[in-house]
């Protein structure tokens, strides 16, 4: 129903490059990418707020590339929800219906109905600034869905919510879609949202849509090194394979299968085990490594390691760092299973 064809745009510091994908009727399509990838710009182009430099946008077969937003028949929820602060919740939700000259009684009925479904019927007389984050999000969704749009565009809809609210609303979103039957395109940096809501997912990196497919497909078979990195393979080791041995920067690594020639393998930082002494077992790759730096990520610590000429990153918990006394310059033992290596 939505087709995006080779859309390109230079906008401020963002550069969208030849973006193509399509969303089918009734689907929940998720565009997943780090912040700065240009996800919001893409959404605003589809909404009609920004004009693309090149490319076309089709909705139900009609070319809407140059239509103004009000004619497109799709609604948009920006990241801050953009509730109208000078109107009550009722008036916010009724806004689109009034523009469509729906009779007053009908407006009343429709607003009440959707407020019932979204659990905000008791908030209709309130002003937006008195609402919590979760309530604001429900109001924004109600306002966008009450006009029965062809397509609902959402920009990081769960990013500004606390864990509990977020988790609750993620669950309810599935129910709303069953009950109200809308089509959604939703951009996010959260893997959790992609896993729990996405029928299909597109990975967007640095202004390009690099892989599209079902959620399970994309996560288990990254199409390129950069997708792999984004999905968590922070270590990409390049070298020459001979059978089950990979030589890279003077280090010999045991592979899970027989390969020959130049290959690249991926290794997740959490699959690397650090220890102060050797713990040699048959199935493991084990090396002596030097700690180059450590980087605190809340309760987790990313340890930057050097084995000869090879650089690796490993995750350990903060308490392990404290117990093992891991700091720059320390020598540690690094081990990982051959089966933790993914050959691309």
């Amino acid at each position, binding site marked *: 129903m939505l087709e995006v064809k080779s859309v390109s745009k230079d906008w401020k510091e963002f550069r969208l490059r030849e973006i193509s994908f399509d969303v089918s009727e009734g689907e929940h399509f998720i565009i997943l990418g780090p912040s700065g990838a240009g996800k919001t710009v893409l959404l*605003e182009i589809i*909404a*009609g*707020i920004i004009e693309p430099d090149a490319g076309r946008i089709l909705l139900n077969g009609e070319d809407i590339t140059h239509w*103004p*937003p*009000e004619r*497109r028949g*799709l*609604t*948009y*929820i*920006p990241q*801050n929800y*953009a509730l*109208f*602060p*000078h109107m009550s919740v009722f008036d916010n939700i009724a*806004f*689109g219906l009034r*523009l*469509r000259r729906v009779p007053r009684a009908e407006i009343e009925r429709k607003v009440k109905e959707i407020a019932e479904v979204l659990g905000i019927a008791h908030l209709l007389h309130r002003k937006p600034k008195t609402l919590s984050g979760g309530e604001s999000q429900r109001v924004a969704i109600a*306002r*966008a869905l009450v*006009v029965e749009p062809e397509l609902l*565009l959402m920009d990081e809809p769960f990013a500004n919510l606390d864990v509990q609210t977020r988790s609750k609303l993620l669950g309810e979103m599935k129910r709303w879609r069953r009950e109200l039957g809308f089509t959604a395109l939703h951009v996010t940096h959260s893997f959790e949202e992609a896993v729990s809501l996405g029928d299909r997912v597109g990975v967007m990196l640095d202004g390009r849509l690099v892989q599209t497919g079902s959620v399970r497909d994309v996560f288990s078979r990254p199409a390129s090194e950069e997708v792999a990195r984004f999905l968590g393979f922070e270590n990409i080791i390049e070298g020459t394979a001979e059978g089950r041995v990979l030589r890279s920067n003077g280090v010999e690594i045991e592979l899970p299968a027989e390969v020959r020639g130049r290959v690249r393998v991926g290794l997740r930082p959490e699959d690397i085990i650090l220890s102060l002494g050797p713990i040699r077992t048959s199935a493991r790759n084990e090396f002596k490594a030097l700690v180059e730096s450590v980087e605190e990520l809340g309760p987790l610590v990313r340890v930057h390691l050097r084995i000869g000429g090879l650089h690796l990153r490993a995750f350990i918990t903060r308490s392990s760092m404290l117990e093992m006394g891991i700091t720059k310059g320390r020598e540690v033992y690094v081990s990982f299973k051959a089966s933790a290596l993914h050959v691309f």
Partner: protein
Amino acid sequence: DYTLYFFAALGSFLVVYIALPLLVILAKQASDFDMLLRALHDAYVIEALRNSLLTATATALIALLFGVPLGYVLARKEFPGKSLVQALVDVPIVIPHSVVGIMLLVTFSNAILDSYTGIIAAMLFVSAPFAINAARDGFLAVDEGLEHVARTLGASRLRAFFSVALPMAFPAIASGAIMTWARAISEVGAILIVAYYPKTAQVLVMEYFNNYGLRSSRPISVILIVMSLTVFVILR
């Protein structure tokens, strides 16, 4: 902290310099209440006050009518020459007031000489920057995303302006309108040249001073001060 006390002492000179004349004139007039009452029964004074209020209000309305759209365009749109327009808007602030009068007469000659139009023309020239800048700042403070969302919900740009941008910028625009009004009613130099008649209160102050001396011009001054301060307090 001696440095701050020293600075405060220096600075309080200006504070006193501004406050003292206000207090003195109000205090002196309070002890000469008869004169104030007489002024309030002087048909000439009432007529002049009426003229001042009328022209200043008309000026503020005209400035809003044209200044609000201009402010919106300046807040929302990039265009070549924008910085020139921005600069031009601020020019009236630096031109001597008598020169403003001459400029307007040179340009519009008899069309504005000694008429309400002339008073409003002079007032508009010096006060329009306040309306334009206030509207621009007001619209800049409104998240453009709100208008975008209104449009995806089906509103045209004009409709989005009237139902979202304008109501939200209203407080800023209203306080800009008050400043415009206050600047308009404070103008003397340009009006003296363009339109000595019909007589405005601020010109009448000068005329009474020249013809009858300080004591006669004081009551009208006090009335104007009270009016201006009232408006100023409303503004804050």
